[in-house]
Every structure is written in C-alpha cells, then in structure tokens.
C-alpha cells in the first residue's frame, strides 16, 4: 500500500505546482476575461530567475535552509513583470478574445528568446538544496520535506485566494470589475489599478510556481510551452475562472499523471486529454465553471 | 370561438428557482385573432412566463401546447419552424449583418433553404421577395444595406421584430417591444407592428408591457400577473373596469 501512497503524493506535488500556474490563469481570466497564453513563459521566467537569485545568494553565503524564502522572494519580485505586461495588454482590452489570445501568444514567442538571450540554451538548475530539510516519512510513505512545504504553500494560497475573492471587500470589488468595467468605474472603483493588481497577482502566482518547482527540476526553454497545455487542461476540467476548479483540476491532472506513470505509462498524456473531453461532454463548462451565455 | 381556434395553451405551468417560485400554476391560452397583453408589477413573472412559453426554460411542472402539440422544451428552432416566434425584451439583432441579410436569415429558415451551401443567397427570388416585403412593412426599405449595429436605436427594435415576422409565424410573443422607446415613437412602433402583422398573416400576438396606454389601446384581452400567479384574465373593457386589479398593476393614484 505504501508505494501506492507514495505515488499519490508525487501526484499531489505536481498538482500543487500546476495549481499555482492555473490559479494565476484563472485569476486573470476571472477578472479581465483574458486567457494568458504566456502563462507558461511566466512560469519559466520564475524558474530561471529563481535559480539566478538563489545561486547568487548561496554563493554569497546564504545559509542553505533559507533558500525557500529566497526562491519565494525571487518569484514574487519577478512577478512584478506583470506590471509592464499589463501595460501592453491594456491596449487591447476592448477587442475580441482572439486578439488577447494572440497578443499573449506574441509575448510567449518573445519570451523564449528573451530567456535564451539571458540564460542561453543550456538548461539551468540549482544545487541540490531540496534535501536541506530532509524527508518526512510515516507508515512507509515518504516525501521530501521541501515538497511538503511547496504543497503547503499551494494549499494556503488556494485557501487564501478563495477567502480573498469570496469574502473580502477587495475580492468583491475584483469580481464586480470582472463583470463590467465601466459600471465599476462609475461606482468609484479605480479600474486601472484593479487590473494592474490582478494581472500582477496572476503573474506572480505563475512565477512563484516556477520558482518553487526549481529545486526539484531544471529551467529549460521549453518548459513554458509544455506547461501551457497542461495548465489549460486543468482550467478546462475545473471550469474557467473558478479557483476551486483550478484546485480540483490540478489535483485530477496531477494524480492521473502519477497513477498512469505507475499502472499504464502509455496513457499518461492521453489520459489527461481523455479526462478533459469527458468533462466537457458531461459538464460543458467544467466542474465548477459557469455555463456559457 | 371554437377550441380549434386555440393556438397556444399553457396548463398549470410553474417555474421554481430553488425555493423561490417565479411562476405558479398558470393556465392560459391564446386564440386566433387575439391580441393578449400580459401586465404586472416588476418581478411578477412575466418574462419567466414568456421564457417558458418559448421553450427557453423548461417549466418545473405543467405543459405547453402549441397548435395541438406539446412544445415544452422542444427548443427555439423547432418553435420557429412550427410558427411561434418571439422578440426580446432587450433589442436583439445581428450587429454585423445588414437589414437585408438579417431578414434573409429568417427567410432561409422559412423557405427551408438552410442547407443550401452553394446557391447565391440573393439570387433567389423567393428570398428576395420576403426580404423586400418585410422591409417594406416595417418601413426599413431605405436601410436595406445598413448594418444592424449602425441602425438608429428605434430601427434596431423594428429590425428585431421584423426578422421574427419574416418567419411567418402564427403567434408572436413580444416582451416589452417599446421599452426605452420614447413616448413620441411608441405608438408609431406599435402601429407599424400591427400593420405588418396583418400584412404577413400573423394570427395572434402576445405582448408583455408596462405601458398601460399601449395595453389599453391595442389589446383584446389582458392577463395580469402578480407574484408568479395569474390574478386576472379578462377582455380589455372588463379589465379596465376592475379597479382592484388596476390598482395592483398600476398602483394607486397613477395618472
């Protein structure tokens, strides 16, 4: 039984990272009705930047057990790139969806080369710091403590976001802005600020995801383009714009990947799309999405 | 009036939203030659009623018969082909299509040409006939090649209704067709409508309206709703003679 739980836990870890990126996607979509195809690139940027800052800090004598905080900090700082990005995307808020998709697609194209320009074509990685905190194990089930920390971060962000959007005044203001920009402005909401805030926050979730995954992985030019598709699968399964959907969707995708790696490796990617299709047939708007029109 | 003349009939229809009952056991019928108005305070359930009658919403209970067959939930397309058409409370047009094209959409449905993917649309005499006749009836002829989104507000409303008329329906449901239309234009719109209805052979009209002026001028029969229930269903003159109902609908001391 223990191996089975180990696999489940591996899936949960994948889900945690996927959730961070997908929730950024959801937040931006939820409020701004923009599908950010560049979310993968932003994730990659978080990864590269996280490595860059953390290795620099370690070389300057940072105590190793502080590295998660440096990573998190790097993710947050580089997430500020959302501010200029929002400035670019602001130019097409009034256009049809296809334009927003395309503009973020353009950003994605550019990002690959920007990353290559700064970091070259070789994949980058951190020294093996993820074992700094050892392994947590119980009943034969074990997992690196660092991974547990990442899961904890994702879960607390999930709960925090749900509370923030559902219960706080700012959250309600965001939701109002999501629905009708002009009327929100007429209610005294500084829409520009809300958009900058949301886009930056959404970007930050992505960069944090990228930074946190790094001790276990490496940063490569392709990582973003690959991730987009998975993040989309999460979002489609969970329902566009729903935070709960992002969490459940990420969990489903993470677990499916893990379980199929164990029991039926041929199906890994296919299984994800099979679920996507099944969900869309059964619940066209996704598990927690609102129906269209 | 024989029962054969009944075109649209709803029996005991209800619509629930969770605990809230927006429509409660309503019976009604519309017969050939009638102009039935539905009135009632805000939130009385008028729009819900139209939505159920036109299959946009399933009734929670009860059923709706049109022209003798059950139409509960048959879907909008089927309704349109059977001869039940509607215009919306908020103006609904095709922003990028011209008046000509908009009316042609209905014409193609009516003539069942919808799967003709290779014929020239306006090369067809039949389509052209319907387009020109309908546009004429609604005074839209000068705008034939204007896009819907470029039409003045009032014309848009007419186009919305005209395109529904071009389906040559038996019964037409109109949800506040003059909402937002200025006083100066309201009667113009209504008269255009009625004239067109006659011209295009529409057999009965059902109207949802707050403007009692319009209601009293054009209706043959009036249904009053309140809190999801039908509280009156009377010929026009009897309706306006009933002080109690009038005060519910119009309020006390209104003009």
């Amino acid at each position, binding site marked *: 039984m223990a191996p089975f739980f180990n696999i489940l836990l591996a*899936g949960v870890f994948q889900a945690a990272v996927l959730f961070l990126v997908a929730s950024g996607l959801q937040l931006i979509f939820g409020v701004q009705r923009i599908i950010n195809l560049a979310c993968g690139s932003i994730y990659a940027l978080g990864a590269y930047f996280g490595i860059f800052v953390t290795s620099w800090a370690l070389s300057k004598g940072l105590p190793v057990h502080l590295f998660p905080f440096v990573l998190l900090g790097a993710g947050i700082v580089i997430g500020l790139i959302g501010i200029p990005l929002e400035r670019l995307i602001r130019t097409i808020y009034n256009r049809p969806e296809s334009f927003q998709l395309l503009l973020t697609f353009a950003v994605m194209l550019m990002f690959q080369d920007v990353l290559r320009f700064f970091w070259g074509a070789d994949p980058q990685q951190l020294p093996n710091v993820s074992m700094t905190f050892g392994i947590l194990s119980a009943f034969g089930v074990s997992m690196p403590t660092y991974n547990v920390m990442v899961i904890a971060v994702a879960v607390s962000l999930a709960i925090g976001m749900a509370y923030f959007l559902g219960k706080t005044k700012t959250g309600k203001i965001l939701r109002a802005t999501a629905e009708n920009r002009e009327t929100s402005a007429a209610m005294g909401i500084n829409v520009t600020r809300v958009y900058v805030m949301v886009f930056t926050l959404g970007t930050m979730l992505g960069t944090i995801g990228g930074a946190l995954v790094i001790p276990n992985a490496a940063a490569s030019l392709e990582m973003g383009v690959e991730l987009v598709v998975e993040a989309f699968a999460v979002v489609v399964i969970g329902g566009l714009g729903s935070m709960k959907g992002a969490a459940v969707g990420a969990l489903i995708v993470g677990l499916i990947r893990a379980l199929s790696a164990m029991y039926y490796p041929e199906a890994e990617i296919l299984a994800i799309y099979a679920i996507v299709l099944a969900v869309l047939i059964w619940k066209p708007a996704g598990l927690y999405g609102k129906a269209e029109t | 009036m024989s029962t054969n003349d009944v075109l649209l009939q709803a029996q005991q229809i209800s619509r629930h939203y969770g605990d809230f009952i927006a429509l409660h056991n309503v019976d009604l019928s519309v017969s050939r030659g009638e102009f039935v108005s539905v009135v009632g305070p805000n939130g009385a359930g008028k729009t819900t009623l139209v939505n159920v009658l036109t299959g946009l919403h399933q009734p929670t209970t009860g059923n709706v018969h049109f022209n003798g067959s059950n139409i509960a939930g048959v879907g909008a397309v089927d309704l349109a082909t059977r001869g039940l058409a509607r215009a919306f409370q908020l103006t609904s047009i095709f922003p990028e299509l011209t008046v000509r094209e908009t009316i042609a959409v209905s014409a193609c449905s009516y003539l069942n040409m919808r799967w003709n993917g290779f014929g020239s649309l306006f090369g067809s005499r039949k389509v052209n006939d319907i387009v020109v006749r309908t546009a004429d009836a609604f005074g839209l002829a000068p705008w034939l090649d204007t896009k819907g989104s470029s039409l003045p507000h009032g014309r848009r409303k007419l186009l919305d209704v005209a395109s529904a008329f071009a389906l040559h329906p038996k019964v037409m449901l109109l949800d506040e067709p003059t909402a937002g239309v200025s006083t100066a234009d309201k009667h113009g719109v209504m008269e255009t409508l009625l004239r067109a209805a006659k011209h295009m052979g529409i057999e009965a009209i059902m109207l949802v309206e707050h403007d009692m002026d319009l209601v009293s001028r054009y209706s043959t029969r009036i249904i009053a709703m309140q809190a999801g229930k039908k509280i009156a269903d009377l010929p026009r003159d009897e309706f306006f003679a009933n002080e109690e109902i009038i005060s519910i609908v119009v309020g006390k001391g209104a003009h």
Partner: protein
Amino acid sequence: QNKPIRIGIIAPRGGVAGTIGECGLRGVEWTTARINAAGGIGGRKVELVIQEETSPKDTIDRFRKLVLQEKVDCVQGIVSSGVSLALAPAAEDSRMPTIFWDGTTQDGVKETMPKPKYVFRSTDNECEAVMASLLAIKHFKGKFKRIACVNPDYSYGRNTWTAFQALLKKYGIEHEVVSEQWSKIGNLDLTSNVAALKAAKPDLIFSSLLFADLPVFMKQAHNAGLTEGTRFVLPAAGWQHTAMKKEFTPEGIVWGHNTMYFDDPKASATQKEFVKWYADKYKDYPHWEADRAYFSMMVYKAGVEKALAAKKSWPTPEEICAAIPGVQVESLGGKGAMRADHIANQTFHQGLSTNKNNYDFPTLASVETMYSDQLQKPTGADFWEWLNTANFKI
C-alpha cells in the same frame, strides 16, 4: 578559385535540443577559425552561413534557402532524427553535399535512404546504448536481476531499451523487467516516475534520458532514496555531464560520453586545445556534439582535398562526395572515417563514473573506448538481427 567556400550549418538554437545545437555551433566556430588560420580548405577560406533547425517543415525551407539562395557548397548539421529524415531526400534531390552531425535514430534503425550519393550521416544513435549495454554486462553481471528503465518517449528511448534487453538475452543474463517508465522529452517533473520506480524496487535502472531530463531525474531519484543500492546505466549521461552534480549522482555508473570525452587523459593535443578554448570562453566543458561538428567539417575538408589532388582543378560536388567515403580523419574524440555507405565510424568513450575529481560532476574512473565498427550494424543489415549475430568483444 579564391572565393571562400560557403558552408551552411543547420543546428537547433531554441527548444529542447537548443543546448545540443549550441555545443555543435561552438565546435564549428573553433574548427572554422582553425582551418582558416591554416589556409582553409584546398586553399579557400571557409565562410559559414548559419540557419536554425526547427520543425522538419520549416527546416526544409531553410535548407532550400541555403542551397538556392545562399548557394552554399556544403550543408552540415542537424540534430533531430525527424528533421534528418525529411532532409535527406531533399539533399539528394538537390545534389547538395550534406553531412549530418547527429539525428540518426531512423525509424527503428532501418535504412530509409538506400545508396545515397550526397548525404552522409553520423553513426547510429544506438551505438552508445550498445556499448553501454556491453559495459553493463561486463561490470554488473550477476549483481542485478530486477531491471527497469526510464527513457525518453520516442524512438531513441525505445530503441536503446530494446537493444539493452536484447543484449542481456543474447548473453544469457537472467533478468526481470519490473518497470518501464516513458517520459516525454523536456518533461522536467519526473516525481511520479520516480515514485513508480521506487515501488518496483529494481536492482538496475537503464536510462537514456537526454537534456535536462536526466539530471532532474537523478536529483529526484536521489531525493527519493532511489539511488541507494541501485545500479545505473546511463548511455547518454555525457549529453548533460556538467549538469549531473555529484551531490545527487552516485559513483560507479555506466556512463556514456558518446564520441568525445573532454577529460580523456589520452586525448589528442587538438582535443586538449579545444577543451581549453571552450572552457575558457564558455565556462563549460564540451560534449560530443562539438566533436561531431569537427568531424563533419574535417571529413568534408579531406574529401575536397582528396578530390582536388586527383583532379588538380576544383572538384564538382559529385567528385567531392565520391571522394569522401573511405577518408580517415583524426577527430577530436579519436579516429573516425566515412564508410562506403556514407555512414560515419567514430570512436566511442564510456566507463564507470567516479566522483573523485576536481569538478562538481562525475568523470570516468577509467576510459574504455570502442570503435563504432564494433557497435554499428554493417551496411544493409537489420539492426536487431545483427545484434543477435554480432561477435562483440566484451
């Protein structure tokens, strides 16, 4: 005749294979400078025209541009098998001398380009797996029974694994496959594969993962405790050798460096010079793709000069291509030659790894080399049949 020779180079710069292309391009840079400093090829300077290798569809267009627009004399490069497969017929058709650096995991190693006139291809990508399998048998025989793999999910990954099992069978090594993990190239989250492997409790793990995938796998495997007591056979470890940090890589791995091992004590002076230049300039240690680039260029040079010597005037592309088979060159990683069927023979370097060195990644405790006439199927043979009948010297 004093016009420079224009050589088109096609190599990936972005995407997953960008890192491989980069090393090859650096190799070409160095090689060209060196050739030009020594007077060029047949007295003509070499001029490079570089294009990027992307999808087969777009790379074909780049190739045609080199041929028709840039009027190059020769095209070298190509890393991915898919692209080389599309390009070979086009090169034949346009009579363009074309030498592939790599990218010859061809359709289950069947020859899809019989009797080429203009196209020269590299050694089979499976050579390194054959050699690694032989070394695994030599060093680990009797020390394992339960085997598992984690390989890239495409032909290269599948062929290497099948070859390993075939050789175990051929040498009567009793074994049991307990898990097969396939990972999409570029997938950097292998935690579930690691968990699945861990559950299978293998004695030996064979992995031909490439690029960053391998170090990431090793790191995750190490952190999950999978590296303890498990033997590893990593024929492609040398693709990312500098990323395989000691802290998560155990010693004693069967470790492939393909056709060049940068730290080979027996290396030629040329290789040492190159490695030094590379390390100084790029703060990194080169791998085999630089050698492939060097080899391709030197083979072309030798062919041109051979044809020139025979003819005394500048040879046609046909004459150059006819001259190339049979030429021997001393490549960076050791001796190499072009076979009559236009397939390269080169020297492969592998061995058991050690962490006792001055780098932060493993090197070879002792270098074993094999010439690819030992590792590669002969002309016209079927790879899988040949594996069964070949006489390997273990």
